[in-house]
């Protein structure tokens, strides 16, 4: 333990702690900007670049960045002397001097860390105005980059390279021209970007934002010729409340349904229904491959989940040799769209071109996924628009709906009925747990005593567990965050694989930590609270196994036949592409 004084207060902390940590312990909240630490997720961004957190340390010539300076015995720290206040403010003015002042019409207005820091430091003028750096705006199907607003905090770079190991972004150029960008400062679309959106999730300013589709949805809703239905992903209900000032982890399923109905959607459905459907297909595929494996036939094991579109992009671009390993099952979003525009459209007697399917997703990659050619029929996409949780929040506010006072309502039938297994798709470990619940019962033909496989839960980046399928030991691997996924893939590549099935979610924490969720501002407790809410929703469900969902059973009876039937294959499965950069010989 190390003893020191901060602003006259004595404090004792573990050796190796930073001044910032120590100050927190005695209620001194030193402002930070670039610093971000989510310890349990192994996310740390500490370039000590913004210099906002500087403090005075007795005996030191210059000011010390409190985020990156370790405490030492007897240290005397002052965080609010006139020297510090002046420095902090001048640095803030400098940062603002190279940042557009269009806050009022910025997508991050009100949610911007830079804006709130400027307020907090009471910056009311910029004495050091000068030229500002300008860059070409970059629009991709999911993410908009407006680097004029970049403050070089490097959080996006840390997420993209260290956490996700995608490598789409890097610091480029130097000095005043330095900025974070893809190679050759090209568009993200021409990079290895997976659209996981983790860069957007951590960007403190409006430099990285999502492509906003709300106006197109409003237009669709206003079009009397169109039937507009909506599906909502599981993780949305555990986070949407934050948009309306509710505590993180507040479940708002009922209010959310009411709000969507208020917005004018013709039917409010649940992606959880499609999650149950995914389990039927993916679970059957798992058992199929497993049986082949046990019979000594040639097959691909482990089976990898395929619900996560950023993950699909990741292996298509970086591990194309594995493109036959993941389950061919489409993601729940796309299964929903496919069923909605066939089975459901037929049921209500509407042509697919007059049916608009909107999805509310915690995710930015979903915006890209629904535009993929495989998920279109004669140019008409199965899912027309994917909105994020944040966009939905904005839409509700614009429609003058007092969200918090809404009475709970239920999803519509038939595509709104779901089980607890569908709900837990929103959190890391959930997809595989849902699959196990069904696969176990189908394989063993026995009923589970408990459906809670707690060994599959948690926030550790890579987890494994063995589930006893009545004598058959099923080895399961789980990774969340693409960096962890890479580690698992590389172990497979080295031939060290011992798993039968692996679940992969791109975002740390799973979909609850998706790039489209309300801003967590780097607080990992927010993610944990959301995970808790998801499991609470599961417990609250009367049916908790996908294969027991009566509407799923009915769907197979009326329309699909069996899981993995030809029709199911056609509508609910897909194939993957080798999208690695290729080198060709120029003649």
């Amino acid at each position, binding site marked *: 333990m190390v003893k020191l004084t901060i602003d006259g207060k004595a404090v004792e902390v573990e050796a190796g702690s930073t001044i910032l940590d120590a100050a927190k312990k005695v209620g001194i909240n030193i402002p930070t900007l670039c610093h971000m630490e989510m310890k349990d997720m192994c996310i740390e961004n500490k370039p000590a670049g*913004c210099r906002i957190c500087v403090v005075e340390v007795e005996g030191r010539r210059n000011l010390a960045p409190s985020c990156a300076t370790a405490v030492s015995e007897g240290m005397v720290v002052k965080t609010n002397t006139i020297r510090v206040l002046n*420095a902090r403010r001048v640095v803030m003015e400098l*940062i603002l*001097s190279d940042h557009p002042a269009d806050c009022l019409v910025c997508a991050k207005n009100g949610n911007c860390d830079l804006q709130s820091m400027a307020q907090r430091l009471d910056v009311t003028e910029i004495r050091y105005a000068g*030229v500002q750096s300008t860059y070409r705006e970059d629009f991709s199907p999911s993410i908009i980059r407006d680097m004029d607003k970049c403050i070089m905090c490097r959080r996006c770079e840390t997420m993209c390279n260290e956490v996700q190991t995608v490598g789409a972004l890097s610091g480029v150029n130097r*000095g*005043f021209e330095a900025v974070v960008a893809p190679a050759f400062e090209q568009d993200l679309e021409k990079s290895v970007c997976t659209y996981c959106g983790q860069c957007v999730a951590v960007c403190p300013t409006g430099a990285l934002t999502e492509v906003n589709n709300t106006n197109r949805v409003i237009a669709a809703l206003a079009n009397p010729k169109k039937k507009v239905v909506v599906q909502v992903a599981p993780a949305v209900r555990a986070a949407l409340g934050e948009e309306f000032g509710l505590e993180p982890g507040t479940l708002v399923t009922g209010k959310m349904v009411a709000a969507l109905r208020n917005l004018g959607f013709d039917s409010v459905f649940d992606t959880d229904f499609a999650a149950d459907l995914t389990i039927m297909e993916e679970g059957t595929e798992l058992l199929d491959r497993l049986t082949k494996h046990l019979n000594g036939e040639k097959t691909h094991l482990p089976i990898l989940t395929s619900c996560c579109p950023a993950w699909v992009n990741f292996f298509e671009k970086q591990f194309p040799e594995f493109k036959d390993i993941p389950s061919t099952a489409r993601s729940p979003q796309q299964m929903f769209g496919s069923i909605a525009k066939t089975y459901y459209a037929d049921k209500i007697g509407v042509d697919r071109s007059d049916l608009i399917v909107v999805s509310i997703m915690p995710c930015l990659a979903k915006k890209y996924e629904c535009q993929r050619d495989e998920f279109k029929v004669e140019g008409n996409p199965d899912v027309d628009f994917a909105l994020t949780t944040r966009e939905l929040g904005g839409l509700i506010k614009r429609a003058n709906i007092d969200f918090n006072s809404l009475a709970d309502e239920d999803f519509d039938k038939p595509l709104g009925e779901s089980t607890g297994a569908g709900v837990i798709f929103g959190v890391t470990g959930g997809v595989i747990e849902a699959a196990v619940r069904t696969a176990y019962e189908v394989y063993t033909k026995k009923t589970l005593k408990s459906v809670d496989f707690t060994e599959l839960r948690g926030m550790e980046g890579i987890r494994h567990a063995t589930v006893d399928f009545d004598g058959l030991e099923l080895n399961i691997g789980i990774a969340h965050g693409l960096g962890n996924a890479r580690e698992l893939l590389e172990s497979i590549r080295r031939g060290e694989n011992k798993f039968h099935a692996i679940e992969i979610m791109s975002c740390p924490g799973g979909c609850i930590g998706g790039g489209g969720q309300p801003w967590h501002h780097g607080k990992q407790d927010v993610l944990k609270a959301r995970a808790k809410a998801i499991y609470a929703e599961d417990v609250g469900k009367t049916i908790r196994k996908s294969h027991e969902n009566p509407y799923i059973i009915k769907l197979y009876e009326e329309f699909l036949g069996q899981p993995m039937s030809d029709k199911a294959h056609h509508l609910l499965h897909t194939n993957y592409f080798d999208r690695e950069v290729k080198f060709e010989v120029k003649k």
Partner: protein
Amino acid sequence: MADYKFHLLVCGGTGCHASNSDVLAENLKAELAEHKLSEEVQVVSTGCFGFCEKGPIVKVVPDNTFYTQVAPDDARDIVEEHVIKGRKVERLLYVDPNKKEQIGDSKHMDFYKKQLRIALRNCGFINPENIDEAIARDSYAAMAKVLSEMTPKDVIQVIKESGLRGRGGGGFPTGLKWEIAANNEADQKYVVCNADEGDPGAFMDRSILEGDPHTVLEAMAICGYSMGADKGVIYIRAEYPLAIHRLKVALKQAREYGLLGTNIMDTGFNHDIELRYGAGAFVCGEETALIRSMEGKRGEPTSKPPFPAQEGFNKKPTNVNNVETFANIPPIILKGSDWFSSIGSEKSKGTKVFALAGKINNVGLIEVPMGTTLREVIYEIGGGIKDGKKFKAVQTGGPSGGCLTEKHLDTPIDFDNLLAVGSMMGSGGMIVMDEDDCMVSVAKFFLEFTVEESCGKCAPCRIGNKRLHELLVKITEGKATKKDIRNMRNLCHVIKDTSLCGLGQTSPNPVLSTLENFYDEYMEHVENHNCPAGQCKALMRYYVLPDKCIGCGACARACPVGAISGERKKEHVIDQHLCIKCGACLEKCKFDSIIVK
């Protein structure tokens, strides 16, 4: 070298090389061959003599005749006159600019009289591509002593007691640095030589590497022995092809002689050295940035701690010293710490190499004991100001340093004194300025450099220096206010106080020191929109001298903006508000009646 009657030492440093000294050396060899003297007279291409102003230099040993500005064609005279007939070629002898007399022996030259060469001891004396010549002048003797007689702790003790401080700029005690690296246990450690010399106007490291590469290799091995590192890396600027070439030759020869590699001198000690190349980033002179760069990354510095001694190259304990620091090590080992600490000032021991440049008569590389005054350096060694102009300032420490004036001339130069007067030792650049230099422009020049070289990682350096430069531009354009000056001063202090690495922590020094020492000159720009040195283009004014103007109208016709008016055969006037300072009138006037002020 005893077998030869004469040695003709031809400077092969970069400056002389650029003036065809290589051709000269070839010609000398050809002349000697023609006269069948190749067995008696040896031509040696050496490293830099330091007296770059008068290059190419040829020194004749043993009589110390010092020929300056020798052209390739002069080879014949040197051989036929000096070598054969024993007559000095008078027209090539150095002429003392003050006494106006020829000096035949370099020992009597003011340029060398006050110098004490420790780091540069072999530069100009040996052929750097011949290890035997280096060994003849005691190279590797210190390493032999260390390996056979001393424990690693002894070595560190000697270096600590010598008082040697890092010559790269910071002035951190070298022995202490070695000790910290030695005390950090690890399976692998590294010795790194920082040869990414980047201060504009400093070239001592280059000269040492070009003139005496073995001293650096030897010192690195000694350092490796003391801290337990069997690997060394020299990080060198790719723009130094000659130094790289000589290092490669030296490495090869040292390995062949068993002075590098495994089981050196049969002592069981292993040490080998590889080269890594810088790629043009000044910030890589900062040790954490240098290490990032060695790892193949962007050279962005990181917060210290962890220090490289704890976590450096490949996350292993690493000791980084610069070239000149290493060059001091072997003599300290051989002659002892008492000898070294008897030289210099109280807190800065030994000597320092300076690259003397700018408006001074004897541009070149000099080495003087710490504590020598600026006046001695500029007037005695440097021979005073060029073209009889008036001394105005001397800039020390490169972009991290400051401009000192007349009143500082008697300051003894050492780390602490320079810091106290608002400048820095830096790596030893010393640029002399005369009355024609505008100090605001000089500050602007350095800031332009800093802006260009900032890595962009931390906000105060990335944006602050840009703003500082913009403010200086504003001043040189006569558009700044007194409030700007106030803000600028505050900005300088904040940049120094908050920047991540040494680059930003010192970049405002040229501004602060000129503000301090030349405040009136700043004010003249701000209040009277006038540049006293006549350097700031935007503040120049064109005038017609009434008594010289004959009213020909040529200037008015040439003026692209119609700023000149006047009746025919009468004097013309320039409207200062319209004038764009293009200079067209000046060019056209045949009667020298237009002046710029």
